[in-house]
Structures are given as C-alpha cells and as structure tokens.
C-alpha cells in the first residue's frame, strides 16, 4: 500500500477520534450554531478547490475548480459569519 | 353618603368590620364613616386610629346604626335590627340561609341586605370573598385550639428521654378552612391526613403534603360546594371513616353544606372508639357540628378521656388579621356599590345581585326563599 495512503488513513482515524471526543454534551440551543460552525469548517475543501483551479491546465478542470472555489467560498464565508450572528446571543459578559 | 360601623356585641366576637386603613380609603372617596366607640378595640384598633384617618367616632350606638350603609361582621341581633333605618342597607355575614327571623325582618324593613354568604364564588369576586378569608382564620385557629387541647406534642421529638412520635391529625372537610388546618398542622410537625366528599379535594390535600383519605363515598360538587349526602351514603361514610378516626390523636372537622346544618361525620360510637387523650375539634359547631358529641363554645373531656372542643368564633382568635382581611373584603364590595358617593345597587351586576338577599321588600336568593318557605318562581318575576 502506498505510504501516503497509510499516513492519510492514520491521520483520518486520529482526527475522527478527536472529533468524537471534542464534542462533549452540547446544550440544544447550541446545536444549530455548532452545526453551522462545523459546516463552515467542512468548507476546508476550499483549499482543494484552490489547488484544483490553480494548478491544473485542463480547461474543464479549471472551470470545475473555479466553480468549486466559488461554492466553497460561499460555504466558508457565509458559514462563519452566520454562525457568529447566531452566537451573538451569548455575547453579554456575565457580571458576577 | 354615610357608612356606619357599630360595635359587634356578640359575646366572643372580637373582629371589626372596618379597619382604620380601610376607612381611610372610603373617606378618600367622600364617604362619611361613623364608627362606634371601642368598635375596633379587641382587634387592636383603638378609637384614636379611626379619628386619625378622619372617621367620626361616636359613643352612641344609635348613631352608628343610623347610616345609609351599615357594615357588620356578624348578623344584627334582634335589638339591633330595630336600629337599622327603614329602607337602609347592611353588609356582613347575615346568616341568610339559616336564620329565617333575620331575613324576614330585613325584608319587612325594606332593607337592602348584602350577605357575604351569598356572594358568588367567581374569580372576579375573590377580593370580596369574606367566607374564604374568615375560613382561613378559622382553619388556623382550629389547629391552635387542637394543639392546645392535646396532651401530646404535634411534632416528633427524639430526646434523651425517649422518642415522642408525631401526632396523627385527621382533618375532615377540606374546604378553605380544612386546607388551612392541614397546612398549619403540618407546619407544627404533625402527620396529617384528610378527607372530603368532593373528589377533587384529594389532589388539593396532597398538594399540601398531607395524605388524602379516599373513601368510596364521593359527591360531585354543585358549583363549588358539596351536596348533602343521602342517608345510606352517610352511614356508609361513617363506617368507612371510623377506623381512621379511631387511629387519630387529633381530629379537626370543618365540613359544611351551604344552607344546611353541618353533616355529622363523627358519631357517638366513633368517639367511643378513640383513645384517652385524643382530641376532637369541631370547627363546624356553630352550624350544628360535625360531631354528634359536640359542645358549642366549650372544651370538655368526654367519659372515655377524649377531649372534645367545639370552638365558636374561631376567627376572633386572630382578630387583628381576620379583621384586616375582612375589612379588605368589605372595602372591595362597598367600592363596587358606591358610584360617585352614592349607594347604587346594580342588580345587573352578577356579583352584587348574587350577594343581595333582600332588596325593596323582596327576598332574592333562592336558598333564603326556601328558608322562608317562599316559592322559587316568584323571584323570577
């Protein structure tokens, strides 16, 4: 098996563990913001898109890549911003 | 308009129908308030307090009765009825369903009589519901009477001289007074159980942390009140209640059915099955008593050592607070019948109309009519 693949799998498995563990019990009010934030992170595919759009020579590939960049960008930018809007309800600093 | 507050002369009655605070509210609405001297003394309100808020304190009894509206706690005694101006108005507990004499004379004198007993128990009238406020006082005082009469502690005590188990208190009749009795006895640490014929009472009893005794004898309410039981139901009830009564250290009874004498819940035989030192407080003794062996106004030790008390005038035992609540009820109702400083009896007002037992020579309440042997239909006319 290709060592890059093995590395990939290792990294994938470990990251999956981290993902499982990092989410403790979440209060329902946070379900939507958390989902939205996680969704924005999944926009990391943006760097794949940039790579695809940026380094290929093939026209179709470039076109698809550019489309991907556009879609991923909506996902990332919209995602983080909208998450932040949702989270503004928790903004108030608690006095003690 | 002139409002009179004669002194209550019934022995043991310590309450007053209007407190200085309530008087002040009326005076602010241009009502002339006339208070008989010493009327509030036993409830902790000296005459000075009334003059202080602008009421007139009169030493003559007659002057206090000579008013457009007389407010009272208890019903007028025969002599007092004569002092009431013909065509005048009176407000208070007027025993409209039990004293034909009073109702008859009020009608004959064309008096407008507003009786708290007849006030509809609807949500909007709760601020005027003197039955409730005074029953609250009675329920509390009944427990104090019971605790005082009982040779046992109410609470449990674990001491170097042994463990005293908590007193077992049984409350029969869980209306307003009964519920208050339950709450008070529980406060003192007794183990409380209670019974009422109205099926919905069980939940209310439990909502106070007491145990509800559920017997098969139940009577759906007519309006908010219980109906009287048939004879067979009653004897079944006695049979089923007997063991609970026998097992109790203290029994407090508060059962009543409007317009009837109080139902018998504890028979002679049941008293005899109780143990020496057990206590019965019959808080319904004024309306005939729930216990066959009942001494109204007295506390006696029965042959087998059972202590039986039939306190009357229970609310007077907390006269200050009972008067304060009563005066608030009076105030709420009076404010409803005074328009621009004039007494206006608006019979289209469900609440006023309900409370109004006699008006312009008519007996208006069904139960009162029944008492006087008048036909029900006449009223409709």
């Amino acid at each position, binding site marked *: 098996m290709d060592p890059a693949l093995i590395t990939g799998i290792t990294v994938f498995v470990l990251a999956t563990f981290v993902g499982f563990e990092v*989410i403790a019990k979440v209060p329902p009010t946070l379900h939507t913001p958390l989902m939205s934030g996680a969704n924005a992170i999944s*926009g990391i*595919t943006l760097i794949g898109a940039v790579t695809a*759009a940026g380094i290929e020579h*093939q026209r179709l590939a470039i076109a698809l*890549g550019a489309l991907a960049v556009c879609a991923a960008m909506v996902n990332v930018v919209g995602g983080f911003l909208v998450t*932040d809007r949702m989270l503004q309800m*928790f903004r108030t600093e608690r006095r003690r | 308009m002139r409002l009179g507050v004669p002194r209550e002369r019934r022995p043991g009655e310590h309450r007053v129908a209007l407190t200085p605070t309530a008087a002040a509210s009326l005076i602010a609405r241009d009502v002339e308030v006339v208070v008989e001297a010493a009327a509030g003394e036993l409830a902790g309100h000296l005459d000075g307090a009334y003059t202080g808020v602008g009421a007139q304190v009169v030493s003559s009894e007659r002057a206090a009765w000579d008013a457009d509206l007389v407010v009272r706690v208890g019903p007028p005694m025969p002599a007092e009825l004569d002092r009431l101006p013909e065509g005048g108005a009176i407000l208070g507990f007027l025993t409209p369903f039990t004293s034909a004499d009073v109702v008859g004379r009020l009608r004959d004198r064309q008096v407008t009589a507003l009786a708290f007993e007849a006030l509809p128990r609807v949500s909007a009238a709760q601020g005027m519901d003197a039955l409730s406020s005074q029953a609250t006082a009675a329920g509390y005082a009944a427990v104090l009477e019971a605790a005082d009469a009982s040779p046992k502690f109410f609470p449990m005590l674990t001491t170097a001289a042994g463990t005293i188990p908590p007193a077992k208190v049984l409350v029969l009749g869980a209306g307003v007074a009964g519920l208050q009795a339950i709450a008070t006895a*529980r406060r003192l640490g007794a183990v409380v159980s209670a019974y009422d014929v109205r099926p919905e009472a069980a939940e209310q009893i*439990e909502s106070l942390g007491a145990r509800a005794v559920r017997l098969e004898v139940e009577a759906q309410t007519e309006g908010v009140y219980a109906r009287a039981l048939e004879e067979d139901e009653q004897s079944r009830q006695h049979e089923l209640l007997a063991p609970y009564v026998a097992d109790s250290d203290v029994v407090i009874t508060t059962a009543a059915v409007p317009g009837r004498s109080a139902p018998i819940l504890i028979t002679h035989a049941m008293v005899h099955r109780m143990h020496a030192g057990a206590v019965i407080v019959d808080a319904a003794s004024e309306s005939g008593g729930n216990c066959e062996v009942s001494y109204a106004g007295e506390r006696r030790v029965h042959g087998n050592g059972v202590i039986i008390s039939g306190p009357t005038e229970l609310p007077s035992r907390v006269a200050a607070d009972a008067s304060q609540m009563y005066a608030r009820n009076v105030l709420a109702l009076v404010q409803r019948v005074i328009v621009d400083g004039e007494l206006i009896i608006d019979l289209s007002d469900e609440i006023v109309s309900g409370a109004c037992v006699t008006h312009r020579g008519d007996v208006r309440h069904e139960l009162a009519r029944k008492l006087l042997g008048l036909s029900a239909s006449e009223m409709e006319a």
Partner: protein
Amino acid sequence: MVQLLYLACAAAFVIGLKRLSSPRTARSGNIVAGLGMLAAVVITLLHQDILNWGAIAVAAAVGAAVGVVWARQVAMTAMPQMVAALNGFGGAASALVAGAELAARDPGATRLDIQVTILLALAIGAVTFSGSVIAFGKLQGLVSGSAIAYRAQAAVSVLVTLVAVGAAVAALATGEVFGFWVVGGVALVIGVLMVLPVGGADMPVVVSLLNSFSGLAAAGTGFAIENSALIIGGALVGSAGFILTVQMCEAMNRSLMNVLLGAFTSAQAATATAEAGDTSVRAATAEDVAIALAYAERVLIVPGYGLAVAQAQHDVQKLARELEARGVEVGYAIHPVAGRMPGHMNVLLAEADVAYEKLLDMDDANQIAARTDVMLVLGANDVVNPAARDDPSSPIYGMPIIEVDRAKTVVVVKRSLAPGYAGIDNPLFYFDQTMMFFGDAKEALQRVTESLSLV
C-alpha cells in the same frame, strides 16, 4: 514545512470546535476556526504554484460576496435553511473538486486508491448537495414540509443504491471517466431520496447528518490531492457532526434511524407531535430553559397550584439558589389566589425555606415585570391568564393577574395545555415570547437544574 503549517490550521479547527460546544466559549471558537481556515487558504495560495490567479480571484470574490451578503441579511428565523444551503455548497464544492481531479487526469492511469477516494468524494459530495437542496426546499417551504411517502419507497431506495454501487464498481474496473460521472449522477438521486421522506420538524437532524457527510467528502478530496489539512478538517467535521446528529436525536428522544425512516413510521411521528402539543406553541427543552435562565439578569418565579401538586417546592428553591450563585437576581411573584387556599404558596415556599424577603406581592411584581428577563411560571395558569385583563368576554375578566407577558421571555412549566381551575384556555401559551416546557413541575425543575451546569 507547509504540512506542519497545515497541521497548525487543523489544530485551530480542533480548538474551535471544542470551544463551539460550550456557550461561554462558542463565539471565540468560531473565530479561532475561521482564522484557521484563513491561514489554510493563504498557505495554499502561497505554497502552490498557482497558474490561474484570475479564475480563482473572480470565483472567490463572487463566493465571498454572496456569503457576506447572505449571512448579513438572512432573518434569524431562516437560519436552519441557510445552514442547509451552505452545506449544499460545501458538498457541491467537494464534488466539483473531485470532478476537477477527474477532468485533469486519466482515471485509468491513476493509483486505485486515489481513484477510490475521488469517487467517494464525488459521490458523497453529490449526496450532500442534492440532499441539502431538498432540505433547504423543505425548510423554506418550497418543497412540501411534511414527510413525503410513496409506495415502494423502500424498494426504490434499495434499487438506486444498488445501481450506484454497480456503477462505482464498473467505473473503477474500467477506469472510464464516464462511469464516474454516472456514479455522481446516481448519488444526486440518492440524496433526494434520502431527504424526501423526512418530516419538516426532523429536518435539522438531517441537515446535521448531511453536514457530517460534507466533512467526509472534504476528507475524500484530501486523500485525492494528498493534503493532510483537508483530511484532518474533513474527518473532524465528519465525526463531530455525527456526534452532534446523535445528540440532536437524543434531545428529541428519537433514534437516528427513526428520524431517517421518517414517513415509514408515521404513527410514531404523530405521537411525537401530540406530545409537543399544538404546533403553534414553542415547546422548549430543559437546556433551552436553563440557558434562558442562566443568561438573565432578573428572573421572577410565578408559582401556582401545579407546583404544589408536584410538591416541587424544594426543587424550585434549589434552582433559585443555583441561579443566584451565578449572579441572577431571583424573586417569587405570589398571586393572591394562586393555589387552592389563601396562603397556599406561602406554606409551600416556607417549607422550602424561601426567605420572606424574596416574596413579591402581585402589585410589586407587576411593577417590575417589564424589567424582568424571564418569568418562570411553575404550574400556574389562571393567575397569569392575560384574558382576565384583555378579554371582557372571559369568565375571569376583571381578576387581577401577574402580567408575565410584559417580561422579555416567559417560560411556562406544566404538563400539558390543559386549563386550570377556571377551566378556560390561556392565550399566554401561544405568545411569541412564551416557551412551554411540558412536564411534571418537580421533574422539570430537576432537569433544568441539571442542565444549568452545561450552559
């Protein structure tokens, strides 16, 4: 070296996700994750030998603009569909990247494992995309919100899935590009089939699941272009999203299977709706109530007969103490006829040792009602019924009430929408600012108190 920088970005995602899962840190978590993303993009741009700057710039600018405007303007109530749509974009992006890879190289000449990952990224991305579109449509009301069931649904689903698998095997075996596109197409159909049967109320769960998928799709592209930041980020979202999905199901007392099978189990669904009562009331969970309380400055508790029935006096006191420990000002608003006897609430609260100073009369309570963040109505009904104030035809018109509806938020705890002593309906329950928390008061309070520690 660049790999280590990517690793740092991935770490930012981990930290961001962790902080996102607690209310106190959520906002900063989002920012950390966002910065990680920014860094990852910058690194990529600098590191790769970018040829087509123009295409990227235009595409990125358009995408960013759409994202900014949309996120700014969307109504708070339209958040769920926006998340669904964004998710669709993410899925589409992954599928497109996979497509670009396909276009750029001859699949047949590529390592098998790369082929497989490209195929997976394409398929999962496509499912995510089409599923999200349907979810968006349902939430936005473009597609019928209710669960759509049709005969032979199960058979169709199985069939389509078999087709997809078959196409995938064929594509890999032949190395034909066309085969890959077929798989992508079938995947689009699967996405649609998957979401259609799910009812509108369950849609957030599906969106969350699709979100988890879009993470997997991203990870797939990561394998394809051998980029560990993508793998880590994608795997993180894949697993965290899955856990979140499961938790969302738990919060609804459902299993994930049950949600996905949706229309098949319509009987169950009906029960669930009935439990939650009329759809026009807002049914809250213990955690919702806990958050509303924990982040309030002033809370007034309005006890009623139900609190006495539940004998929950100690539990309410416990909750009040915990709120006070958090700096919330807590008082009790006592209505004169709450309960079933004069002084009922006094007895009850005295048993729980509530200090007399904390008890407010109706008048005092009404005076501060408008300056109260949360009114917590516990087993009270008639005494907070606005009809007594507003509706002259109501049998209780004229009875003074505690005007809880003047507070910012009203939380009503009772077992159902059943009326109280007066036997009349209570419009309060249907007000916008009202959350209904259904349940026995004792149990409800215990659950809220427990949830406090989470928020």
